[in-house]
């Protein structure tokens, strides 16, 4: 049998089994996977199931969790933002330099750094909408530009940041719950409502699902793409602030590869790289899987090189899942 024939055959076989059933099976498979991971970790590490460890997990995913909120929006709109993690590092670096080296107040540093995050997002959107270049390549390039800028601005050094104002975003607690966790949950609830109840959210789905049809329905698609990337820049700034607060350090090299963790989480959560599909709670689920996996591997002393490999496998798995869903 030829390649062409075998391709149509397998596609047809998949079609025969019924889409909804296949999809349910895949989703169930994800749940089984998540449960299996948790059972394994709880059996092999006595710390895993303690409440303290769960707060730890939530806290540890708060960074990718916050970026994940924006990444979900970007991916639903049919794009991707690979510059988010670098933007996060740049934002932190700016805060560190402004507060510790230029002696500016923390709120001023916060304002400037968020403006820079927004600017990065807007730059992405301008290139994407005006030059019609694929977001993948635009944000890949932007990722290096921003990362380079962070190194240049800090001359490559990590900066110890002591600022009570910023500290609160990382280690502060409200009713015993860490502020980053609260911020993350708030972001998810907010995005859920935005996607469901606002014209903006609904049009983002349409723009991602079929940009031509959206435009021919009288929707200003560029406006929505711009909004999406601008939001992504702001979310990266928020994540960067939390990270500085958590670690009391501004590091230009921080978070390399985080964007791939985030994309993995969003795809595990059921979004499609083709756009037009995805749910915010799915992303939270995906973020938790990654958090649990990271946490478990750390508790079990899995060597870091193996952790990298495992995450690569997971990303490939998530992309494959996306492809299988589309069958």
């Amino acid at each position: 049998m030829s390649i062409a024939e075998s391709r149509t055959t397998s596609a047809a076989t998949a079609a025969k089994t019924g889409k909804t059933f296949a999809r349910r099976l895949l989703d169930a498979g994800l749940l089984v996977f998540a449960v299996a991971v948790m059972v394994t970790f709880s059996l092999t590490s006595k710390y895993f199931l303690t409440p303290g460890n769960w707060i730890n997990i939530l806290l540890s995913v708060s960074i990718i969790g916050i970026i994940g909120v924006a990444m979900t929006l970007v991916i639903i709109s049919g794009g991707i933002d690979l510059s988010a993690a670098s933007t996060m590092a740049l934002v932190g670096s700016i805060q560190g330099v402004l507060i510790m080296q230029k002696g500016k107040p923390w709120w001023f540093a916060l304002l400037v750094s968020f403006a820079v995050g927004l600017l990065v997002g807007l730059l992405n959107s301008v290139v994407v909408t005006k030059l019609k270049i694929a977001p993948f390549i635009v944000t890949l390039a932007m990722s290096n530009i921003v990362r380079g800028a962070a190194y240049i601005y800090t001359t490559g050094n990590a900066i110890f940041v002591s600022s009570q104002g910023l500290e609160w975003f990382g280690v502060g607690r409200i009713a015993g719950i860490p502020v980053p966790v609260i911020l993350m949950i708030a972001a998810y609830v907010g995005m859920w409502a935005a996607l469901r109840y606002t014209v903006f959210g609904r049009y983002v789905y349409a723009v991602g699902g079929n940009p031509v049809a959206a435009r021919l329905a009288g929707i200003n698609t560029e406006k929505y793409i711009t909004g999406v990337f601008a939001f992504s820049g702001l979310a990266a700034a928020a994540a960067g602030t939390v990270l500085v607060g958590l670690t009391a350090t501004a590091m230009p090299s921080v978070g390399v590869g985080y964007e791939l963790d985030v994309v993995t989480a969003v795809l595990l959560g059921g979004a499609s790289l083709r756009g037009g599909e995805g749910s915010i709670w799915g992303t939270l689920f995906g973020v938790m899987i990654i958090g649990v996996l990271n946490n478990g591997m750390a508790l079990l002393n899995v060597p870091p090189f193996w952790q990298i490999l495992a995450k690569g496998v997971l990303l490939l798995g998530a992309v494959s899942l996306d492809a299988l869903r589309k069958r």
Partner: protein
Amino acid sequence: MSKSFGATQALDQVDFELRAGEIHALLGENGAGKSTLIKILAGDYGADKGEIRYEGNVVRFRSPADSRNLGIRVIYQEFNLVPTMTVAENICLGSYPSGRLPGTISPTTMRQQAQDVLQRLGEDVPPNRLVRNLSVAQQQVVEIAKALLREPTVLIMDEPTSALNDQETDHLFKLLRYLRDRGVSIIYISHRIDELFKLANRVTVLRDGRTVGTFDMSATTPSALVQLMVGRELTEMYPKRQIPQGSTLLEVKDLSAAGDRVRHVSFEVHRGEIVAIFGLLGAGQSELAQALFGVIPITSGTVVLEGSPLKLTSTSEARQAGIGLVPEDRKTGGLVGQLGVKTNLTLAALPRYARSGLVRMQLEDHEATRWADRLNVKRAGMSQQIRFLSGGNQQKVIIARWLANQSRVLVLDQPTRGVDVGAKVEIYRLLEDLCEQGVGVVIISIEMPEVLGVADRVYVMCEGRMVGPYRRAEVTKHHLMSCAVGIEGGQQA
């Protein structure tokens, strides 16, 4: 034979019999079950109930390969050709002749094989030409040649003439008769009833997933077939009403766009009037529609709606001004396939159902359901993904999208392409309703009967220029066609 998808029963005890060496037409509205039947015969789907017999023996298709091995070949409406490969490579795709060394192919043998098949067809498509450089008719020849290379016994063709002109259609028919005379059985699907009488031996009519009957072509008439398809009396195909025309609604003056695709076009639309813009494909009428909707920039000229000039630099401006566009290509330009009926229907009007950016969901649900009911959109539910609806129902949703937005001018580009007869009449009736409410309707069409059937006034476009208007009662087919091909264009009504 029966087949159901989810809650939708697509086929219900359908009987179909194909004799050796006949051309058998399959006729039915969109959604009548033709495509499903074909897909079962091609082995893409399995039947839930019933059986397929081939030369008397019951056969089971577990995959498309089983169907292929029996010599059943399907040529779909959308071609399965690789545009960046040559004609010969496409024809031989899947069974490349091997060369001397293992794992290599022999280009000369391949070219020869392709040439042989093309010669048998009496075609002179150059085997070395890239497929993307061929005309649609030539691509179809390549598809047929590809099917012939494997000596098919049954050839299934899904609406092969929808993209062909008359001459190309005649040529295709000659080819199909030639194949039939060599013992190939052909299942031929088309909406164009007239052409079936030129080609087919027998016809089977499907309606709502059931077989209505099988007839010899010589024993039936076009109007009888139409009636069987729709299952009800078609009092008139074009339900033209007498609607008093209102004041001028839309005034287009000296409009140019898209280089020389639209050149100094002027026309006007009154309240309660259907204006048709007739022309051959590519005469600039689609570009005109796009310019009116802000999709492509207007280079010169003015568009005035109810006395106020419009800038039309973006589609959202056009939408807000009260212009609606039902685009030419439903799939790529109209639908967001993975979203639901409701979301697609309210796509343009959503801001109307929102207060400071927040959608009032109940209002939206209520309005969407109301419009879907009013336009008689057949659906499993308001959140059913729109790609699962039939072409006619999809089109109704796109039209409803603009009605919900209370458009004052509705521009429809080929509104009934790929839409079955029943839905066509519904759409025409709907346009008449709109006129009664004072909407101005612009139909862009390449179908002469449609133009003469529904329009109050007709403009004709040829190579970017426009002539007319002609009143419907005062113009002949012959005259319109003369204008469209640029022979005539003198007197105006």
